[in-house]
């Protein structure tokens, strides 16, 4: 085991290697590493932010959904109410119409009855006279008895 110049040669080449490594190897690699780790950190942060945004958006969406559901329920309720109202109104209308028609009919009927009565009354006196003539076999003085007959007819 001889110590000799190799020792110095090794020290010199070691120094040169270290210098080269320090100058040309270390900086680019460490710069790339640092840049990448920064990039990853940024990416993670962006992902965090995005997930927060997503959460917020979901919350908003569910709120909007809830509101629209409430609105829809309200609209349906109103529509139902309106429909009921319309049905009621229609019913009332129909009832009123029916009543009116019935009244008109009733009036007509009454009129008809009255007319028939009048006609009947007119006929009754003729019939009464005819019947009486037949019974008595003689002409009744129409003028003398017409008063009685009309009185009778009126009572009919």
């Amino acid at each position: 085991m001889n110590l000799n110049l190799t020792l110095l040669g090794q020290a010199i080449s070691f120094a040169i290697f270290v210098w080269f490594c320090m100058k040309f190897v270390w900086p680019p690699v460490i710069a790339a590493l640092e840049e990448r780790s920064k990039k990853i950190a940024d990416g993670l942060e962006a992902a965090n932010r995005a997930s927060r945004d997503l959460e917020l958006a979901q919350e908003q969406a569910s709120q909007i959904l809830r509101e629209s559901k409430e609105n829809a329920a309200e609209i349906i309720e109103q529509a139902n109410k309106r429909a009921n109202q319309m049905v009621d109104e229609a019913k009332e209308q129909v009832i009123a119409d029916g009543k009116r028609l019935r009244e008109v009919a009733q009036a007509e009927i009454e009129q008809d009855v009255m007319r028939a009565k009048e006609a009947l009354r007119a006929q009754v006196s003729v019939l009464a006279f005819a019947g009486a003539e037949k019974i008595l076999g003689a002409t009744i003085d129409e003028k003398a008895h017409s008063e009685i007959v009309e009185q009778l007819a009126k009572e009919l």
Partner: protein
Amino acid sequence: MASENPSASEYIKHHLQNLTYGQHPDGSWGIAETAQEAADMGFWAIHLDTMGFSIGLGVLFLWLFRTAAKKASTDTPKGLQNFVEIMVDFVDNSVKESYHGKSKVIAPLALTIFVWIFLMNLMDLIPVDFIPRLAHDVFGLSYFKIVPTTDMNATIGMSLSVFALIIFYSISIKGVGGFVKELTLQPFNTPIMIPFNFVLEMVGLLAKPVSLALRLFGNLYAGELIFILIAVLPWFAQWALSVPWAIFHILIITLQAFIFMMLTIVYLSMASEEH
């Protein structure tokens, strides 16, 4: 393969010898043919195999990482870029945990230490005879040791560089006065105890590079030695030991690279902090 049929001890010694280039005692320059010749060259010699492999692996490391670094982008990484990013991220986290100073050198330094030592250690898993045999038969080199971290020169070279950085940071952050104070007024803060403190602190200071270098060297040298010992066994029995040892060694080489890196970070962090 120095001789055709080496004995076991010759074989082991042969595998532990580096390919040394230097000045022979007679003044001529050349490659040492024997261990004795290598030893005679003294300090002014160089281990060609250690230098070649360590620089080659260092260049491989930087080339790989530079390729990925040029393509680095914030897109989804794949393949090489992914691997490089994992390594850089791992080292960056280790540094951030232990080092709280501002220096921009520490993290690339730690990355270089970790990957380079790991690659050098990884050579340990190449079967011990492959490359030495190739070097011998093709290039006629009598010695070739491919694991740079089993050469104490490599580990001491690195730990001395780290030691220099420790001194540099200690002085540049605490100032010369602060550094001297740290060495002389701890743990006993009285003038009488200054020599004692100084001896204690110097031991602590010097232990850092020595322990760094010897820990790595010792682990890898021992691992390599065991591979060589296994290679002495008959060829049909080697797998039974070398496979488990290699699998276990995957842990060792990674762990040692990691320990060297972590201790460097911790030492430099201690150097940068005021007490």
